[in-house]
């Protein structure tokens, strides 16, 4: 049950629920609207707007999401009104004097946030932009000015981008939403850093996860329920190798939702669990869906939507849908669609989902045999310019050119072009880190590569201040330098590889030689020579002890020849 109204040009969604009124003023803005260089600005506006509500008797909160920012309150009607009036006033006139303090608070908040094992997934799928930004720290805070914040708030926190929702029958008396006018902001389109899917990327040893993109539909929701059910049964109940096995469905934009599946394991079982996990995805995609499983999943889903105050619980989501123009669907309509759904529909969703899958597999586990391509961790090309060899690993070089920088090694190249650089991170000691739109990072450490300050300055100038943040001073033990031990290690590795190549070349030559047809005459000649050397060495060894060396050499040769001939 949901009712629509309007207050001061802001749409209002009403759906009653027991308890105190929960209300939220939601804006169509989130991380995904930022760039890496402004990342954190929405969160900062949210904090500034709520600053004056720091001490209240009722419960208030704010939440900055991917595409929506919510200002939340719980209390009675007058408290909601009080909160909304204060909030709108704050949004119209942000306490910008608090900027530095709030930035610091945000930094503390970020440093204490626990890192989910999946936090890198958006980066692998989208790169260092729009939906991928949630993988990144709010580095933009270091360069955002009061003007930036004011401009962002004026553009995004407007009447046209707002929606109010309340768990109540009616709008509390005296409610006014005095927001600035603006224009509706379209949803960002998700970019992709994955040239081919299904793909996988390396993650920790104790988790496997997969994210799939599906079209928003009841069949897709049912697919998520089904996936949860089967994964739970196979990995936890039958194999007993996983504890947390989850699969869930979450909307992303107007037509797309994500299905995220996840299982944990002990590192020693990572192979079995990963293979089992992907096998389940594959089987569903191939249409191997057992009727009882599907029926149970549908029933679970039916129970879920038939809940009394379901709409009240999903008001923030409905508010989002309302803003982006997706029509509301009641529980009855959803139930009817679910009844009309067939196994074939779920199969179609599963097959399409598999084609978009991004799997996080334990590092070192290759999934090519399962038909998954590795997500690119390298650039397609390197720039051509001046190259600086690493003093730690002689195979690694930094290349600085007019159009960009690269690091190259035997494993491939990482390239960031200046004109598309998402962020340049400057360290006062001269270290630089460039992040490309695809999430590829190039680290430049003058201490390791011997790069002169003039070159660093050229890089700074080429990227420009709009995409640059300056970090705090690094501690001496955090600045990479070429220590003597490191240099020795590097050169030893290089020597080992050179030796390996030489050995391999020798083996190839041996193989060619062994296959060459030998004439008897040549063989006799060879043996004559060998025995001649042996006899000469033996007879002169007492006088010239150094002759022991060729003596043993030829003996070793004979022995080796004998072994070889027997093997053949």
């Amino acid at each position, binding site marked *: 049950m949901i009712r629509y109204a309007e207050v001061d040009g802001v749409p209002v969604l009403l759906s009653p629920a027991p308890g105190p009124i929960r209300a939220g003023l939601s804006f169509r803005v989130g991380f995904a609207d930022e760039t890496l260089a402004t990342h954190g600005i929405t969160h900062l506006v949210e904090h500034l707007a709520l600053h004056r509500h720091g001490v209240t008797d009722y419960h208030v909160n704010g939440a900055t999401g991917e595409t929506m920012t919510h200002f939340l309150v719980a209390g009675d009607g007058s408290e909601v009104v009080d909160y909304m009036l204060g909030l709108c006033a704050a949004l119209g006139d942000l306490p910008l004097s608090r900027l530095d303090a709030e930035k610091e608070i945000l930094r503390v908040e970020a440093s204490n946030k626990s890192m989910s094992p999946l936090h890198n997934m958006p980066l692998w799928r989208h790169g260092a932009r729009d939906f991928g930004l949630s993988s990144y720290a709010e580095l933009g805070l270091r360069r955002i000015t009061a003007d930036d914040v004011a401009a962002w708030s004026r553009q995004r926190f407007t009447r046209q981008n707002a929606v109010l929702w309340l768990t109540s029958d009616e709008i509390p008396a005296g409610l006014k939403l005095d927001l600035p006018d603006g224009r509706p902001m379209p949803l960002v389109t998700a970019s992709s850093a994955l*040239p*081919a899917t299904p793909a996988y990327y390396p993650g920790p040893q104790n988790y496997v996860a997969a994210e799939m993109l599906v079209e928003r539909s009841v069949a897709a929701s049912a697919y998520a329920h089904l996936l949860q059910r089967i994964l739970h049964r196979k990995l936890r109940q039958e194999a007993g190798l996983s504890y947390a096995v989850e699969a869930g469905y979450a909307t992303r934009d107007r037509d797309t939702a994500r299905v995220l599946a996840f299982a944990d394991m002990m590192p020693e079982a990572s192979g079995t669990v990963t293979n089992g996990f992907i096998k389940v995805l594959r089987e569903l995609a191939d249409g191997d869906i057992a009727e009882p499983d599907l029926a149970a999943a549908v029933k679970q889903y039916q129970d879920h939507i038939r809940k009394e105050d379901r709409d009240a619980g999903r008001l923030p989501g409905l508010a989002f849908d309302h803003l982006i123009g997706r029509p509301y669907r009641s529980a009855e309509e959803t139930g009817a669609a679910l009844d009309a759904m067939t196994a074939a529909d779920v199969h179609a969703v599963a097959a399409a989902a598999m084609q978009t899958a991004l799997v996080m597999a334990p590092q070192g586990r*290759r999934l*090519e*045999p399962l*038909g998954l391509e590795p997500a690119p961790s390298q650039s*397609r*090309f390197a720039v051509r310019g001046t190259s600086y060899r690493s003093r730690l690993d002689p195979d690694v070089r930094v290349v600085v050119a007019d159009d960009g920088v690269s690091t190259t090694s035997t494993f491939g*190249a990482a390239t960031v072009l200046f004109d598309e650089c998402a962020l340049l991170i400057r360290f006062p000691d001269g270290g630089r880190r460039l992040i490309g739109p695809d999430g590829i990072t190039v680290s430049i450490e003058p201490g390791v590569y011997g790069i002169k300050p003039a070159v660093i300055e050229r890089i700074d100038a080429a990227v420009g201040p709009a995409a640059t943040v300056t970090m705090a001073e690094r501690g001496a033990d955090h600045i990479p330098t070429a220590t003597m031990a490191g240099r020795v290690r590097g050169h030893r590795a290089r020597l080992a590889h050179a030796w390996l190549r030489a050995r*391999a070349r020798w083996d190839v030559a041996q193989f060619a030689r062994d296959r060459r047809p030998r004439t008897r005459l040549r063989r006799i000649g060879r043996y004559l020579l060998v025995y001649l050397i042996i006899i000469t060495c033996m007879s002169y060894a007492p006088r010239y002890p150094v002759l022991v060396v060729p003596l043993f050499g030829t003996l070793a040769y004979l022995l080796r020849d004998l072994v070889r001939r027997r093997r053949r």
Partner: protein
Amino acid sequence: VYAFPALLPFARATRRRDWPTLRRLFAELPADLDPTWAVQAAADVKGAERFLAELVDTERESVLPRLLLGTRHIYLAWEARTGARAYAVSRQQATLFHEHLERAERFLGGVTSDDPGNVGAWTERIAAARGLGFGYEEARRRYDMAAKAFPNPLLAQRQMLQTYCPKWGGTFELVHSFARDCADAAPAGAANAALVADGHFEQAAEMRYVSEQMAFLTREPLLRDLSDAAGRSVEHPAFSPQQPGATWARGTFEWVFRYSGQYDRAMVQFTANGTRIGGPWTGYADPGAARSAQRNFCRSRAGKR
């Protein structure tokens, strides 16, 4: 590859480090020719990897440099590994082999992501999957992609046949059924049916003695199989010696006819191929000597019986 003169300019262009010509040659490839032939011709040039690596960095929009460099690394990988049996490959060789294949896989994987219809890249990726031990199911996925991009891709089929061999973890049942499927799908007069003979050669090559091989190859169902395959390919009136796989197909039948005691038929193939060497002979230490010895043997036996 060099038995097909139309491909010589590709190797020449790489040798001369001539990118404009290379690009033009690839753009002008006839639609009915599997581009993999040209890719292999251009990549099988000693020392080309430096030039190709440079192209990858400078010609950023084109997938061709990456395709050629990836293919070059496949060649380098097998150059490091040699054609020896696995037990005779040293640890150092194996390491180098894998290093090259990893690089090839990276370049070629990039090509197939950007251009999923690139039959050349899919074909080379079959070899990479085999060398990296991904198993024949993954190789088959890659073969299917190649076959989707180009009908009856002979080179991909040859790679796939190798992958199905027991030495790479398959079985001979898979080899023969795959060869038969390819032969049936190909139009009459195409070289593809020679895969059936190739499969039998692979099985015979596992045997130690010539007597054993001949006993195996002269079994009745097998002879019928070979005759059918030859009738669909080299002995079919529509068989064109101008197709790029002709030398390989004839070379394969030279070998199997020789070792199944069908000296007359072998002689027909020997004569048609002239001095060109293809098929199983290339695996001998001295292909030319081996082939001419067997040709002389066949000539002495032909016509008698």
